[in-house]
């Protein structure tokens, strides 16, 4: 089994965001980054598949040069090597363009399975995986909670999440693209040994400009403005010490809401 797992670096999940002066992007000067949540689960699934079926796990990232740090973490968790498409000017800000860049790199690679996260922690468009599949001409399944590779049948079964607590098992032929949902397993920690080994593992760097993509001919999503959701709160805010709050709330629930 050779698995490519796409890994994106995004602002840490506890970031308190600020906006840039022109509101076109986030403005925090010093945001720490980490592997986007779903992508980390995708990596975990890839590593489990390698344990079950042998083979190789390759990290594929498009991002800033600093993304190497997150990739090293992935290598420390157990991935074998990485490919980093260097997007220095943030030109890959639309899903189609990201998918096209990934496709270009994957064209001359061998693989059985490509995993991505269902949705990223920054834009959260949830498009890269299925778009990549379409560009590569591969079948796909999204919002995957469980994977069973059927090596003898040359296929993969994926448990897809659906509305209202329903799920479906679908089967598609390999090679295929799956997008992995967060929270489906426990993510392993990197061991000290893993961290040591990761330093020596290869990360091949490719300049985006060198891929020969005509980005300007591709669909683009232009973010015109970012803003914090309007506080439409009509809530009565209850203040005081915990005991005062408790008294006021109980009073309101009894007299106003009449639920007690």
């Amino acid at each position, binding site marked *: 089994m050779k698995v490519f797992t796409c890994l994106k670096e995004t*602002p840490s999940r506890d970031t308190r*965001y600020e906006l840039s002066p022109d509101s076109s992007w*986030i403005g925090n000067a010093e945001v720490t980054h980490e592997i986007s949540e779903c992508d980390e689960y995708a990596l975990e699934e890839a590593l489990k598949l390698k344990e079950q079926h042998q083979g190789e796990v390759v990290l594929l990232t498009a991002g800033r040069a600093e993304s190497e740090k997150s990739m090293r973490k992935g290598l420390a968790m157990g991935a074998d090597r990485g490919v980093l498409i260097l997007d220095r000017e943030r030109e890959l*800000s*639309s*899903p*189609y363009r990201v998918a096209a860049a990934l496709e270009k790199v994957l064209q001359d690679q061998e693989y059985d399975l490509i995993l991505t996260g269902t949705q990223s922690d*920054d*834009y*959260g*468009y*949830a*498009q890269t995986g*299925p*778009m990549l599949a*379409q560009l590569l001409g591969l*079948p*796909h399944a*999204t*919002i995957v909670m469980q994977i069973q590779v059927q090596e003898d049948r040359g296929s993969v*079964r994926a448990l897809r999440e659906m*509305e*209202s*607590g*329903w*799920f*479906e*098992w*679908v*089967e*598609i*032929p390999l090679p295929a693209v799956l997008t992995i949902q967060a*929270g489906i397993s426990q993510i392993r920690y990197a061991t000290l040994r893993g961290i040591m080994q990761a330093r020596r593992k290869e990360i091949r760097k490719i300049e985006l400009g060198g891929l020969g993509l005509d980005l300007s001919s*591709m*669909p*683009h*999503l*232009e*973010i*015109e403005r*970012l*803003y914090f*959701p309007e*506080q*439409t*709160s*009509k*809530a009565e*805010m*209850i203040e005081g010490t*915990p005991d005062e*709050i*408790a*008294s006021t*709330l*109980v009073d*309101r*629930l009894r007299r106003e*809401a009449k*639920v007690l």
Partner: protein
Amino acid sequence: MKSPRRWWTGSGERQKSCNPPDCGGEAMMGEIYVLLDHSKGRVDTLSRETLALAQQLGRAHGLGVKALLLCGPSRSAAENVAGLQVDEVLVASHQRLEQYDPDAHCHALTRILAQDRPLAFLMGHSYQNIDLAPKLAASLKCGLVTDCIGCRIDGESMVFVRQMFRNRINADVRVRSPHPWIATLQSGAGAGNDLLEGSSPVVERTVDLSGLAHRRTVVETVGAVKEKVDLAKADMIVAAGRGIKRKENLRLLEELAEVLGAELGASRAAVDSEWLERDRQIGSSGQSVAPRLYIACGISGAIQHVVGMRNSANVVAINTDPDAPIFNLAHYGIVGDLMEIVPALTRKLREEKGR
């Protein structure tokens, strides 16, 4: 492209003044197409909401609106859509469209949309369309904005509103691509718009899906976890989110629930952390509830959670972050540490009971 007014700029730069010379900021022209999803012969609520939004945009801006339905040969759903106020209902039926199959659905839609090139193609943000829309957008090489909470027409272009950065920040997004601009709309995006009934011609569209390989097979549909607890009927719910931080802290919520006679509920983050069973999850991939009292403890209020609990009669939110979106729908808000507030509340209620 059919109309000279349809333009796009492929450039990634932010440009406000990109009116092409021949349209000079005039109003848009064209049609909005809406996909009607259906099950058991009935068009689903989300599609109806999406269509209502399109009708409203169409009326306000003089745009045509057409509904598009893909179905199997029995066409049972097609019988129910003639009563909509749209210019046309386009129906494509084929054996391969009986059940959702990304290849067949994408192929059929690509054919129809590439031929008609409507201005925009709107779909509900359902699990099915999350799977389908990006594939379709790549197939058409058109731009797609997913999970929109709003959509408006602004001069010669459309603005799609969606949340980013884990729902903390809203973004106005414009699509720079050939038409149609594709969007999936979240439930509530067209809030308040009533679907207009009327009569509309049903137009048959033939799609050739012969020779299309069969790649995805649905092996089994697994029912929701046997719901030991039916939260839908709960009178009161105390719900735990990631903010409870550790499983041991659940005890605090259990005590509150006990004195109230309430059920325990959970956000997905709390369930994923294995603090509570999956059958207590509330939200788009869990249960939908409508108790008289809902106390959200350490829950941020992500849309996927909110859709499952927003019909609660009274919502109390306890959260350390004053900007948490849960306060937007709460009736009573408490900015504070649940570790202190919840026990105080339990004490107070016990005290009153003892009296």
